[in-house]
């Protein structure tokens, strides 16, 4: 977004550690670092994409932001207020301003609640309006996600809806409070392609119309490119690269981002897609911990430097940040070409 002056959300050195249970016999349990000192800002009105593979910590980041979990370290600021200590009224206000859309609409909706009850529940919880006003708000929210006429859906139950309809109900539930910030955690990974496109378009319309800021969590670079203004690539709890979506995808600098792009199935008239070849067979003898998390699989890495120290995220060009000692020269970009097919 052009207006970079006003961050709405800011993460500062955010870390999260999960402790695995101590086994009855043998090992004494260990710590899994899901997020390791992550910092970024999300600006008002933008769609920010957090891209990573499973286990990268992307969902954990989302859950921390909506306060479903507590960080081990670090701060989260929403509109300049530190949310980690929120209690009472401040917490209730926060819950109204920040909403989440979950990955699996087959699990995130209560099977015993009708659509009307599902979507109006947040209004009841926050004591907004009376019965009639609530129904009106619910209707509006349903229309905004394309479930219209709303009366066809209000009295249905989740099992009477298709996957795409369920996810739209979940979005309506998030939108009915008119939030400022929404975390969308892989909202389309359970849906078919044609339905996913619908959800993408709904999110992008919401942003336009409602002046909303969205954190879009996804494993798909193509989806992130389509929807996001900026993206951050995360790997094993570390931010590897961050920048304007188009720039990061066309001109990736981090060997990991490059490996990700290499791995996408390609077909069609792509021209000569550059192959970076930065991935190698994992080196099982690589030391764990201190170094760059991608080091054991990185072809570019230097044994002592990358194996022992984690590079900092540094700006290499206008708002394009990379955490790598050996930022690859990137004069060659993915050629324009026609659209070809990539995995979603």
């Amino acid at each position: 977004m052009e207006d970079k002056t006003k961050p709405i959300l800011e993460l500062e050195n955010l870390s999260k550690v999960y402790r695995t249970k101590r086994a009855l016999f043998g090992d004494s349990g260990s710590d899994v670092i899901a997020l390791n000192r992550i910092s970024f800002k999300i600006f008002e009105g933008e769609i920010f994409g957090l891209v990573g593979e499973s286990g990268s910590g992307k969902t954990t980041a989302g859950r921390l932001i909506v306060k479903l979990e507590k960080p081990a370290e670090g701060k989260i600021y929403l509109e300049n207020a530190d949310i980690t200590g929120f209690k009472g009224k401040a917490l209730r206000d926060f819950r109204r301003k920040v909403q989440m859309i979950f990955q699996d609409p087959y699990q995130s909706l209560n099977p015993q609640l009708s659509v009307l009850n599902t979507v109006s529940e947040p209004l009841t919880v926050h004591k907004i309006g009376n019965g009639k006003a609530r129904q009106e708000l619910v209707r509006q929210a349903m229309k905004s996600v394309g479930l219209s006429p709303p009366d066809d859906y209000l009295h249905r139950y989740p099992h009477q809806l298709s996957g795409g309809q369920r996810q739209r109900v979940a979005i309506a539930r998030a939108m009915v409070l008119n939030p400022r910030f929404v975390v969308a955690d892989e909202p389309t990974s359970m849906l078919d392609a044609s339905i996913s496109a619908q959800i993408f378009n709904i999110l992008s319309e919401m942003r336009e119309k409602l002046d909303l800021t969205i954190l879009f969590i996804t494993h798909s670079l193509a989806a992130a490119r389509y929807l996001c203004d900026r993206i951050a690539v995360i790997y094993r709890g570390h931010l590897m690269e961050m920048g304007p979506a188009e720039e990061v995808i066309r001109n990736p600098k981090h060997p990991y981002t490059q490996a990700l792009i290499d791995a996408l199935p390609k077909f069609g008239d792509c021209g000569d897609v550059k192959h970076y070849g930065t991935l190698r067979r994992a080196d099982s003898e690589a030391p764990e911990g201190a170094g760059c998390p991608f080091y054991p699989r990185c072809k570019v890495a230097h044994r002592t430097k990358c194996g022992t120290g984690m590079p900092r995220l540094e700006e290499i060009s206008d708002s394009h940040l990379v955490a790598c000692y050996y930022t690859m020269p990137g004069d060659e970009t993915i050629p324009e070409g026609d659209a070809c097919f990539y995995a979603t």
Partner: protein
Amino acid sequence: MALLEVENLNIGYRTRKGYLQAVAGVSFSLEEGKSLGFVGESGCGKTTIGMALMGLLPPNGMVTKGRILFEGQDLLTLSDSEMRSIRWKRIAMIFQAAMNAMNPVHRVEDQVAEAILAHDPDLGKSDAKKQVEGLFQLVGIPEARMRDYPHQYSGGMKQRAIIAMALACHPKLIIADEPTTALDVIVQDQILKETRKLQREFGISMIFISHDISIVADVCHDIGIMYAGQLVEYGSREEVFQSPCHPYTRALISSYPTLTGKKSRLTPISGETPNLINPPSGCRFCDRCPGAKTSCKTDPPAWEEVGPRHRALCQDFR
């Protein structure tokens, strides 16, 4: 002669709500050493076709019409025991959700050995284990991990073990149903490369079933697009993806976000798939088709030959 020829296949399920026609009039053929991909959204019948080829339809499912000629032999006329001798030995399957396809209480090595021994009982246990070793090498599982249990494997490794199991009896045909759906892109890429290499090396024919056009486009020679139980377009991957004909194929392609090219607005397919318990008499896609005419609603669509091998179940796409 083609290795596999399927003619006018019709498959239905008896359900509580009535008879559901899951696959209607599907015909295709597959040459030796080639790969064919079926793409379609959930409920289009692609997995049902795979299950029918394996003779593994659930009890409420049945083939009502058609022939499945495998090496010239109609699989539908075979008895259960005859089918058993073909299954896994001649036709193997990589099941969807490989994560759950293995028995958690047996070592991975033993499970693959079991598949080998079941089809070759004369083989000794140690010989079978030797074969497993070779297979695991082939798919890239380190020897040290052979005696692990499935839960000790990562998703990618489990998928590799499942592929090893499918290869165990040197089949002519492997059916891979969403083989990489739950995997990360880097692992997916490795598995797909591995599969292609093995396929070339052993001259195995493959049928890929997936909802993701990019995967199928990446690995298959021929593509079949399925919608609501019907094959709606069929041709080489170049033909189907560079000059898609059926409106559904076009709609499906333009609902995918891409990494290159111009960033245009995605066009979702509005509406919903028809109910297959009482399928519409005309074209099954006509309710969602931007170019539908009134006759589309009533008259069953006919095949249009676009090229020598490229056909589409729509005569009005031009």
